[in-house]
């Protein structure tokens, strides 16, 4: 019986909000795919408030704390 790895999806917008629960996923590829889905859903809810702290980012680590990926949005307006 192999243990399903757990990944933690941390988000920084106006403040750092750390994921203490984690999510079980098959592996790093799945975690990277899920990161995009989660970022999309979170950003949808952020809407216009995004511009209050446009350095929004999401990063994923595994149980050992190794970085799996980071998503950043390059945002600008004139």
């Amino acid at each position, binding site marked *: 019986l192999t243990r399903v790895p757990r990944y933690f999806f941390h988000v920084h917008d106006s403040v750092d909000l750390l994921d203490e*629960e984690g*999510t079980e996923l098959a592996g790093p590829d799945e975690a990277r795919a*899920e990161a995009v889905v*989660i970022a999309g859903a979170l950003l*949808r809810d952020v809407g216009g408030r995004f511009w209050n702290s446009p350095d929004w980012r999401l990063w994923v680590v595994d149980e050992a704390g190794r970085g799996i990926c980071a998503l950043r949005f390059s945002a600008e307006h004139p």
Partner: protein
Amino acid sequence: MSFASNADLGPLVRKLETLVDLSDQEREAVLRLPVTVRVLKADQDIIRDQDRPSQCCLILTGFACRYKTLQGGKRQILSFHIPGDVPDLQSLHLEVMDHSLGTLTESRVAFIPHGTIRAFIRAHPSIGDVFWRDTLIDAAVFREWVTNVGRRDAYGRVAHVFCELFVRFEAVGLNNGDSYGMPITQAELADATGLSTVHVNRTLQALRANGLIKTENGKVVIENWGGLQEAGEFDPTYLHIRKRAA
């Protein structure tokens, strides 16, 4: 574990009395319904999609949900069920289950054969009207959930679910003041609201930080009822609860 018994069907009486006034005779008749009681562990199916049940189930204690499973194992929780609910009443008229029903926590469940319910409705036609009313309210809850999952943001969705459950627990007298037992995981709440666990986690943090709720040991404590209703755009009209348990 399964046994026939004179189980206390008080939860069903309390549920029905949120819908109509029962006569003493009707109340007695409900309490005398012959049932078979089973104790189910958490996360066990009571009945599955495509099954052809010959009985309905009544939740006596615990917490259950109706759900659908998608390809790839994703799950949508369609509704939550608390003591007094008969979540598969539709099986009395629709032969094949079009979704599954399972426990979320250890639950005591009473099974009532369809034939028993039919005879009961014939003997007490007004109870048939109550079941019809309950079925219509069931549909109203689904309309509310479609709106919730389809259009509200995560904050509103989760707030709405907490509001609905508080009103339903209170109606059957199972709240404890401003709190109620909801020992489910964030993943289960995510399945009910169409969100990721991460999103639910952040939303709960926001609801707590804004002083609307506290969550502790499987309990939800309402800290600011007006604020929570506002966050979830919650109007209890769709639950059509006539009166509250004494």
